[in-house]
């Protein structure tokens, strides 16, 4: 069974798990089974059009699925599939989310 590597930024939605077993023989099927198991992560992975959100990259081994067929990229036993979201941390304290107050 292939496993999905979950980065720290998304672990709040997978009960803290860094690696999740998922079913499927394509990246899309794997990610979809992740979202079924952890519904709170769904809105962060998929946009309203059903496609992957632009701040999430998925890698099978060292290669982005952008160049290998996107969510249709096949996954074989033993492949490591990793979600790589944008992170921004560096220096300063948090900025206020404007407009909310």
């Amino acid at each position, binding site marked *: 069974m292939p496993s999905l590597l979950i980065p720290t930024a998304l672990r709040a939605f997978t009960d803290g798990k860094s690696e999740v077993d998922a079913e499927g023989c394509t990246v899309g099927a794997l990610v979809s089974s992740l979202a079924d198991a952890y519904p709170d992560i769904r809105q962060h992975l998929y946009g309203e059009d059903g496609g992957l959100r632009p701040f999430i990259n998925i890698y099978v081994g060292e290669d982005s699925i952008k160049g290998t067929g996107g969510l249709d990229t096949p996954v074989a036993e033993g492949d490591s599939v990793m979600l790589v979201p*944008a992170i*921004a941390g560096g220096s300063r304290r948090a900025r206020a989310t404007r407009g909310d107050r």
Partner: protein
Amino acid sequence: MGARIGSVIDDSRLPELSNDEISRYSRHLLLPEIGMEGQRRLRAAKVLIVGTGGLGAPLALYLAAAGVGTLGIVDFDFVEASNLQRQIIHGVRDIDRPKVASARDRIKGINPDVNVVEHMTRLSSGNALEIMRGYDVVADGTDNYPTRYLVNDACVLLGIPNVYGSIFQFEGQASVFYAKEGPCYRCLYPAPPPPGLVPSCAEGGVMGVLPGVVGTIQAGEVIKLITGGDGGLVGRLLLFDAWRMKFRELRLEKDPVCPICGENRSIHELVDYEQFCGLRPAQGEAPVESLTALELKARLDAGDAIQIIDIREPHERAIAAFPGAKPIPLGQMARRIDEFDQDIDAVFLCKIGQRSIFAIRALREAGYKGRLLNLQDGVNAWARDIDRGMPQY
């Protein structure tokens, strides 16, 4: 990988080194990859460090030590006690000083020959090109998406390399975005996450040595861009997990339809990055209602029926517990929606009142119909205004 790239420093600019400098940089001069010529290039180089925090600290310290001729530093912030766990360029006596002043003193202490240019300002679309023009390399050590995209775009427009580093909790990313030679940040991430998804270091925490490692990797990449040599992290993304002690490396491809570095680019000037990153309210989105700690106290004293929801994780509640609050961690809102009483007001709290906004939005998306309120400035406001015995963190 590892294709050779030329130095960003033109041969016509190379200064001579004095005998004192030759002694000082002897260990560099002995490396054939750097040598006299590389050290002269370092002496001629102008590097801009954006942010003098966790990443900017090792960047500035090592680049000063390495003999970079001019170091520009951009920061509008002041040193706080909570910075000192990782921002090793600042010390206890620097608390409340501008970070650029504190950083300048340390840089000068390490290497008085460095010309330090202080930019005590917030980088913006209005000033970025003016500030960044004339530098040979920019090192990005900022902590927020608007500035990341701003730095990326300005570097692409000016044709200079952007040495990128980013950190979160135990995880770091590093790369060199140099549109002339490879992909830019937008090729990797065309758009940022919505505000609130990824907590800031102030909310999510960060292991102090993590920016030390990532910022030092950035400093190494800056040096190689100046001396010329191995292409380093151009076209590669380095991932570092400091907790599991694991490095991974991913290939990055240039996006042929990238809006700023692709063939038919649509971005020709800097844009409004706050808007691009969703920091202004979207059209039609209902604002999140909030209440202050004083207002919450008044309602509790009056005996109002309120459900208070603490969206923090257990380890964070252990720092400063909020009495009477029901704990439901942020990541579990949608699946625990049935635990709410939608007929009475629900007040959400976190450390500083930002992630709780996200919890409210998640519940709305999940179909919640009742009234949802955000505790403004979080439990830190409660500690500040109501319960002085409670720690602020």
